[in-house]
């Protein structure tokens, strides 16, 4: 009897608390909707995270009611959470794979800016180095182990290459940088294409001298600490890489020229595929044709469900993404992370995709 009474009393108390809380939340959100815009959540790529923070700051300054939260969780998490509807905008260094698009046909991959990747080396006494996809594939599979290997020497006439073992450094954690690096090797080396393929994680072949490092910062630290190493590092780290004394390799492009990741060469790669970009904009810019087109260049993507739960949410997402690819593509934003703006034909496609968000 007394147990039942007391339980009942506790239950009523709990219900009352819940009711008060619910009223408070509902009351707050309906009041909020009247004045403030729908809250948006962006999550994903750690490479895009600093840029999204700049964009949100800029967007909020012209649109003071905006309410956008940014988080850095990784590209894979960004895509998965956007698919599950946990967030509004997933940020990813790679477009959604064919199998993901087949499974979730309403998801859009929308390019926001252009990024690229440098191949950096730490070879005492060497300040200029040419590398190619097949050479890098040889290094990362253990077929090329010495810096004075004939294949490297042939690509670097007149450079005194040391007779020293190469230390290849790769990313330990899943990364868009591993994705575009392995895609370059797959596109330029048939053996790599048939065995290791490409992805945000690669099952690296066992090489006794190789190293894994966590994040771009870890790659930089590992390459700087290990003479005779080679590493792939996102272009947003170019400043820190240069001050650490690492060299930047020129890579063999599709036309047989060795090109450096300068803004002109990256833009050349983007321009060369701009007109052949399909309407869903899922295209690789890796190893693209075009004069002086740097081979490791990629779009940074927003992964968004075209089928939003509410009209107001869809409007807020469209408005913010439009800001990102227009005012947000200005050099004042992009140069802080060494990204480049979308070429005009791609911007048109991107705006068409943004318009699909309903």
């Amino acid at each position, binding site marked *: 009897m007394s147990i039942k009474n007391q339980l009942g009393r506790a239950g009523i108390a709990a219900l009352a608390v819940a009711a008060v809380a619910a009223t408070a939340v509902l009351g707050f959100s309906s009041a909020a909707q009247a004045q403030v815009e729908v809250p948006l959540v962006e999550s994903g790529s750690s490479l895009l995270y600093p840029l999204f923070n700049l964009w949100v700051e800029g967007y909020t300054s012209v649109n003071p009611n905006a309410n956008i939260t940014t988080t850095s969780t990784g590209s894979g*998490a960004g895509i998965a959470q956007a698919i599950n509807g946990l967030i509004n905008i997933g940020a990813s260094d790679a477009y959604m794979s064919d199998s993901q698009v087949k499974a979730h046909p309403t998801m859009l991959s929308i390019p926001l800016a252009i990024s690229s990747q440098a191949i950096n080396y730490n070879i005492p006494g060497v300040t200029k180095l040419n590398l190619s996809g097949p050479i890098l594939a040889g290094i990362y599979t253990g077929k090329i182990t010495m810096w004075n290997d004939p294949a490297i020497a042939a690509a670097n006439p007149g450079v005194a290459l040391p007779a020293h073992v190469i*230390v290849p450094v790769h990313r330990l*954690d*899943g990364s868009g940088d591993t994705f575009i690096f392995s895609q370059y090797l797959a596109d330029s080396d048939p053996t790599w294409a048939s065995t290791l393929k490409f992805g*945000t994680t690669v099952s690296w072949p066992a090489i*006794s001298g190789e190293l894994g490092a*966590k994040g771009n910062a870890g790659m930089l630290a590992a390459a700087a*600490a290990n003479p005779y190493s080679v590493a792939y590092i996102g272009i947003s780290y170019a400043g820190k890489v240069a001050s650490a004394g690492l060299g930047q390799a020129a890579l063999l492009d599709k036309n047989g020229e060795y090109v450096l990741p300068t803004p002109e060469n990256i833009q050349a790669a983007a321009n060369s595929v701009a007109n052949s970009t399909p309407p869903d904009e899922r295209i690789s810019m890796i190893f693209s044709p075009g004069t002086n087109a740097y081979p490791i260049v990629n779009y940074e993507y927003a992964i968004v469900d075209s089928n939003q739960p509410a009209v107001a949410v869809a409007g807020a997402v469209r408005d913010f993404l439009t800001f990102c690819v227009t005012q947000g593509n200005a050099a004042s934003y992009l140069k802080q992370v060494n990204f480049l703006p979308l070429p005009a034909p791609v911007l048109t496609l991107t705006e068409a995709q943004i318009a699909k968000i309903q």
Partner: protein
Amino acid sequence: MKLGPFRLSVLALALLIPASLVAIVLFLMVYSLPVFKFSGLHFFTDINWNFGDTEDDPVMTRGMLVPGGASYGILVFIAGTILSSAIAIIIAVPLSIGAAIFLAEAVPPKIRPALSMLVELVAVVPSIVFGLWGIWVLIPFIGHYLSPTGNGYGLLAASVVLALMITPIIATTLLDALMQVPKENRESAFALGATHFEVVSKAMMPMVRATLIGGIVLALGRALGETMAVAMVSGGGVNILPTSIFSPISSIASFIVNNLDSSQGDSTNMSVYAIAAVALVLFLITLAVNAAAKLLSSGALHVRKRQH
């Protein structure tokens, strides 16, 4: 028994803790089942880990839809975890015994609390700080002076960082036990003409042996599960077993945190299940170690009671 609201609410709160444990175990088991079905015992004996081609369409392999070329073998990570923890224990035990005996026997009682607090403070340094120290100080040191290849990342670096993290755990456990050795035992040993060394080694250490073992196993539990510091300095060897103390390794915990993101790009979800299976293995290892620690340190208590 009267079940008042106080009793009931406290009971509910108390049940929450074992309930959450059961929920975690159930979740891990349900998630990892497809992987054990797919890989069987090869999950533990293979050295190759490959998420497979998650970009392309999945293929039917052994009756299950998985990314092409997927294979899940965790022997490399088990080896990395056990080796790094074992070497850490080998480094940490003599250090901790020396530190505890010094604090219990050789330090004037007035400054003992200050010094033992310093040792305890090492235990609260966040693991990321140890990891940073490892990257900027320890790894260049190993690379320049010890490693034949000039590479500092690997088993030794991970073990040294782990040893530093667990030394205070063992040292403080042992110090507490040494301080509880009855004054009579210590003084009678002196009265019998034993040297200070003999008093410590023959009269005191045997009484605290069980506590020492309990402390070591507790520290082992911490070392096995350590994630961040190991991920930063281990060099992350995959698909290859370590051949020397300078070889890059991966521990189970650091492997999980590094591959969490990539696992989510798999449309079959098999990669997520594989990560859950790895987590289940780590969970079972640390559970066994901590249960052993509990058992051994409760044994220590009985020994002391009988001595009185």
